């Protein structure tokens, strides 16, 4: 990781904040649309991220929340099923974990923790497997089935925070603080990158999603390691960026990629760009 400190071979003349800024605008915009109703009486969207109604016609429902409902033994009404289908269809196009990077309010909390962690130079790292989130996903669905209730929704930091910002937080801030401290002190990018079962659901949805980040300019990579430093899921970079010799195409196909675009921002040689998962062939050029 010492390479991160060394100056990049290419002069840093580019503006490095485009996608990060757009992402923050998107997160604030989504929250703003939800708050516009209760604060200003302009009802663009009602409800919260668990389930909502846009412009009184378009239902949206979170797939993981609905999975818990179904696991608990309730047969949901058509509105919720349709809402979840629409959400799944959207993220099949946009990249499942684009939800995590562009919509989820907890992302701002964990990004803040990651930023502070780097500032403070903290080195502690208990590292649960990155697959822990899938175990949690399965365990929580099983718990829903056993308890006959959507048990995760009592404490789910994602629902808790978003619902809290709109309907009142109560002691919900303690759960959000716990996530922040976990990311800051225990495991870097621990919540979103290792544990969150909601993110795991979107990962599964995104495994075949159309919109992807591509390392089309990987021949220009100067090994500065900036992308690995900023990436919340750095394991997805390796195959696409360095896999040319093994015959791996330039598309970042790892389903944990949240399409946050931070690698595009920080890469001075301009290796990365947004594209589709199609045409994942090796470049003809040397």
């Amino acid at each position, binding site marked *: 990781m010492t390479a991160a400190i060394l100056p990049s071979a290419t002069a840093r003349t580019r503006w490095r904040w485009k996608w990060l800024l757009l992402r923050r605008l998107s997160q604030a915009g989504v929250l703003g649309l939800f708050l516009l109703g209760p604060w200003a009486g302009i009802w663009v969207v009602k*409800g919260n991220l668990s389930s909502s109604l846009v412009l009184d016609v378009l239902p949206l429902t979170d797939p993981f929340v609905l999975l818990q409902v179904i696991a608990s033994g309730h047969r949901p*009404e058509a509105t919720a099923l349709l809402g979840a289908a629409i959400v799944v269809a959207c993220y099949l196009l946009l990249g499942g974990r684009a939800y995590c990077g562009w919509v989820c309010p907890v992302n701002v909390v964990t990004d803040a923790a990651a930023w502070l962690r780097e500032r403070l130079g903290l080195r502690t790292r208990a590292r649960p497997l990155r697959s822990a989130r899938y175990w949690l996903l399965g*365990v929580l669905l099983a718990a829903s089935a056993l308890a006959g209730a959507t048990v995760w929704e009592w404490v789910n930091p994602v629902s*808790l925070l978003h619902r809290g910002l709109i309907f009142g937080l109560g002691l919900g801030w303690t759960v959000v603080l716990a996530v922040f401290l976990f990311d800051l002190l225990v495991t870097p990018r621990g919540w979103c990158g290792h544990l969150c079962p909601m993110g795991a659901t979107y990962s599964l949805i995104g495994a075949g999603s159309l919109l992807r980040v591509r390392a089309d300019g990987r021949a220009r990579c100067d090994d500065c390691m900036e992308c690995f430093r900023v990436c919340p899921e750095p394991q997805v970079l390796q195959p696409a960026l360095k896999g040319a010799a093994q015959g791996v195409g330039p598309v970042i196909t790892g389903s944990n990629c949240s399409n946050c675009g931070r690698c595009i921002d920080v890469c001075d040689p301009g290796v990365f760009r947004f594209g589709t998962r199609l045409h994942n062939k090796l470049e003809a050029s040397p």
Partner: protein
Amino acid sequence: MNRTQTSPPSPGPSSPARRRLLQEVALTACGAALFGGGVALYAGAARALPAQALRPPGALAEAQFLGACVRCGLCVRGCPYDTLRLATLGEPVPSGTPYFVAREVPCEMCDDIPCLQACPTGALDPQLTAIDDARMGLAVLIDHETCLNYLGLRCDVCYRVCPALDRAITLEPEHNARTGRHTRFLPTVHAAACTGCGKCEAACVLEEAAIKVLPMQLAKGQLGRHYLLGWKEQERAGGSLLPEMLDLPDRMPPAGAAQ
């Protein structure tokens, strides 16, 4: 970085990398199971609903409701009177679920039941189409010692505000034994018509309401299944099941007892 990817492509059955991976997977699985168990236990403990918290009209029985409700707050938005609210973490109501407190803001019993129509999952059961059939709870005249009508006055407020006037609450006249020459009009709730909207509780003029809406399971008794009400059976059969005149055995005092 992901350790599974840095390990050799096909480690032998006893290779250290494989062993470490298996250990980590086992640890993760156990951790996840413990965590899930903890969350389920907490959710189980936090499940009880306080008596003052009433669910919106059409809510499924509490056990089913907690599986069906996604805590989206669309019912809250549907309510035109700001009656409903979502519980926050730390309140005694399961966090995120909708409820109302009758004494603060009672249900206005809208004909089109907008809160129920807004529910995307059916946690508020769409089979409820007439608000008069809602059973959010049951009004109970809890305190006979402070109720003004029981004291002999004509308060009648709970009776007057009831949306099911003269059906859910009636005033039953009864001789006032204290004065010996007045009548008390006792507010009497009839479960067959009470929706549990809470207007009576909200309107009760006392500092602390003498009439309160309670969850159905708290408010109602339950007759033994084998109990038959003679007068109802008689009505159903169209006549007495026994001969009108019963010939009971005569019992004469034994001879000499009168002495």
